């Protein structure tokens, strides 16, 4: 019972990490082939489809874009997606299939939800089965689940190109590839086949896929029980794989129709991290130095595993108030958790979903122990770079790598370089924007929430936990995670609009600086490594990188965390 954690929990965590790594390596290499435009398993089937789309889009695939061009395409595509989704949600009352006759969303909720899905955040101000029609779920949310994840991977690909193009190449340009080609390839070759496989696997476990209206069951005690249904499996699959996390149902993956068995739970947990983890190996392969990808994967894993262990231990330790009220102490803190998952699978999920910017939940984080709930919050506060979002996790991490190279360079008095590219003032300015800008709205908006009447009205739990609900919400939005301390009453104009703005801030004030860095680096010469080059694949570098991430996260947020989870913890143990 090391750290009070049961042997079964240790085994499940070990199996999880093992399977995750074993799947991530081959998937990463496959994705590298796809993103480099090499022939692969699916080329014979999909190449003709690709051609057709390029024709319809009037895109010449070999025509590459500068970073400004690439950024313009990203912004226009996101804007177009937002307008489309916003309109669908407003008008859903008159679009079939809508068997429950759910009305159109209010403008503030439609704004929040549309921004949320376009920015790959997938925050749930909406209530799922009580708010959204089958059409909105399929043609609205599912579509953005795919394409918003693909945008992240596309931008990452552009950054990798910026880092890897050598001056000796014929490709020594300031060009970063073609956004439309990257989008089409990521969606068709990566996300679609993986989602189809996962959807069918999940359906075998009991995840539903139907267009029938909700049924009313006559229960054994004679009551009427409405059972919400819908096309869940298709959405569930991409919701997990695309680090989206917005649930079909209000309670997300704790709902038995989204996540019925321990096996469905295991494959959903693997799906949370698999693409972000695999992209490390994609990166290594594409820059032609696998050690660099392994070093980054190691840094992520070395932060993730200890924090997961801490979360399991804290939840297993339980709530002293419940024990005083007569709960068996061995059971742990089961409020908000499902029996079939227990402590271990709820805590591993909580850590994984916030390490990645997934944001789905299989247990209610608001009911976690204060420090157990601080773990997911802290993982988001690290900037969603511990695996992180699809594409966005690794490009965020590479920003931290550039900062680390810079800091280490200052310490030893050498001009910083990464993968042979000199890191100059422009890159550091852009990296600073990407790291610091998303944290400002978190703190400002949390302060606004606790100081104003409409903000306070949304807080649900009394005392410091209410503060934590606001802090968690804005952390989640500005880091494009989407999970919540769900007691927060967020479906009102105050939270819907502020959270929506945080999501936009968190998405584009990282994405645009990343593209700017990519463009700047692409145009630079690659200098050969010398004795004075700081190696970036060594254990020493991994440690310094982790130190940088933790330092930035903790320095920014320590006071806020002290006011929320720490005081709540002290209140809990004082009895």
């Amino acid at each position, binding site marked *: 019972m090391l750290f009070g954690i049961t042997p079964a929990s240790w085994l499940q965590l070990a199996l999880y990490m093992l399977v995750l790594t074993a799947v991530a390596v081959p998937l990463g290499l496959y994705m590298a082939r796809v993103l480099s435009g090499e022939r692969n398993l699916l080329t014979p089937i999909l190449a003709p489809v690709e051609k057709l789309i390029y024709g319809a889009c009037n895109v010449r695939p070999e025509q590459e874009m500068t970073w400004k061009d690439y950024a313009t395409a990203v912004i226009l595509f996101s804007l177009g997606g937002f307008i489309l989704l916003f309109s669908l949600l407003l008008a859903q009352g008159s679009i079939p299939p809508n068997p429950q006759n759910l009305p159109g969303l209010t403008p503030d909720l439609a704004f929040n939800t549309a921004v949320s899905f376009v920015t790959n955040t997938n925050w749930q101000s909406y209530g799922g089965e009580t708010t959204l029609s089958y059409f909105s779920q399929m043609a609205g949310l599912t579509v953005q689940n795919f394409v918003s994840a693909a945008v992240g991977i596309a931008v990452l690909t552009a950054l990798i190109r910026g880092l890897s193009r050598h001056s000796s190449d014929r490709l020594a340009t300031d060009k970063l590839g073609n956004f439309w080609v990257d989008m089409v390839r990521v969606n068709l070759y990566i996300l679609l086949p993986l989602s189809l496989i996962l959807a069918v696997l999940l359906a075998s476990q009991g995840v539903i896929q*139907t267009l029938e209206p909700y049924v009313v069951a006559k229960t054994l005690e004679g009551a009427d029980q409405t059972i919400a249904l819908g096309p869940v499996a298709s959405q569930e699959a991409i919701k997990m794989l695309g680090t989206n996390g917005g649930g079909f149902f209000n309670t997300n993956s704790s709902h038995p129709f989204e996540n019925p068995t321990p096996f469905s739970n295991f494959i959903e947990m693997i799906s949370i991290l698999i693409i972000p983890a695999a992209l490390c190996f994609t990166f290594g392969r594409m820059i032609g130095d696998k050690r660099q990808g392994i070093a980054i994967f190691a840094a992520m894993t070395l932060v993730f595993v200890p924090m997961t262990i801490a979360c399991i231990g804290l939840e297993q330790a339980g709530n002293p108030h419940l024990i005083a009220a007569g709960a068996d102490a061995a059971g742990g803190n089961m409020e908000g958790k499902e029996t079939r998952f227990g402590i271990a699978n709820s805590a591993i999920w909580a850590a994984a979903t916030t390490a990645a910017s997934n944001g789905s939940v299989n247990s209610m984080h608001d009911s976690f122990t204060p420090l157990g709930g601080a773990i997911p919050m802290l993982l988001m506060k690290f900037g969603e770079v511990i695996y992180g979002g699809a594409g966005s996790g690794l490009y965020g991490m590479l920003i931290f790598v550039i900062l680390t190279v810079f800091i280490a360079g200052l310490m030893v008095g050498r001009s910083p370089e990464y993968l042979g590219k000199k890191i100059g003032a422009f890159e550091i300015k852009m990296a600073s924007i990407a790291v610091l800008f998303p944290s400002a709205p978190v703190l400002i908006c949390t302060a606004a929430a606790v100081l104003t009447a409409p903000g306070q009205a949304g807080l649900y739990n009394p005392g410091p936990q209410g503060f934590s609900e606001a802090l968690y919400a804005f952390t989640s939005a500005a880091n494009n995670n989407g999970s919540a301390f769900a007691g927060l009453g967020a479906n009102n104009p105050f939270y819907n609009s502020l959270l929506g703005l945080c999501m936009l801030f968190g998405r584009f004030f990282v994405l645009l600086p990343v593209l700017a860095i990519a463009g700047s680096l692409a145009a630079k010469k690659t200098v050969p490594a010398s004795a004075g080059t700081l190696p970036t694949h060594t254990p020493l570098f991994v440690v310094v990188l982790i130190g940088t991430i933790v330092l930035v996260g903790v320095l920014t947020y320590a006071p806020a965390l002290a006011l929320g989870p720490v005081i709540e913890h002290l209140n809990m143990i004082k009895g």
Partner: protein
Amino acid sequence: MSLLKHIQPTLASLAFFTLLFGGAYPLATLAITQTAFHSQAEGSLIRNGNTVIGSSLIGQNFTQPQYLWGRLSATGPAPFNAGASSGSNYGVNNPALIEAATARREAMGVSGPVPVDLITASGSGLDPHISPAAADLQVPRIAQARGLSEAKVRSAIEASTEQPTLGLLGEPRVNVLQVNLRLDGKQK
């Protein structure tokens, strides 16, 4: 002008992705799953004749003494409303959490520690399971209310108990609705 040249691909690709991922993909999944896993895809519904009496994956509210009781449920307006799933979202120090736990414990009329899952609400509010220990605790009450032997009640519970997948994943658990269907003689 670089802005204008991106407008056609934006519109055309959004249209294509909406047709593919909003139409073809969910409908293809529908066709495959309805064929291969029809009952699961429809919600694992349980019927008595033509009447749907529940889903094997969704818990029901049980308060009568002759039935096995499940987790607490925080859904509104009534517990186990599978049309509006919800957890309690109570923080550890919320007095309402302890009140709900204490009320449940008193309703069960047991002294001594009880399994924690019996006095806490699930995340979904629809948890179909309780732990074997939580089921075991209720055997005497059920046996007495039904005039059955405790062994008969235990065998219904055992028949509705699932072990961790491959002996490893998840927790041992008892499907509450299945136990009660067995006790009512509606399922073997």
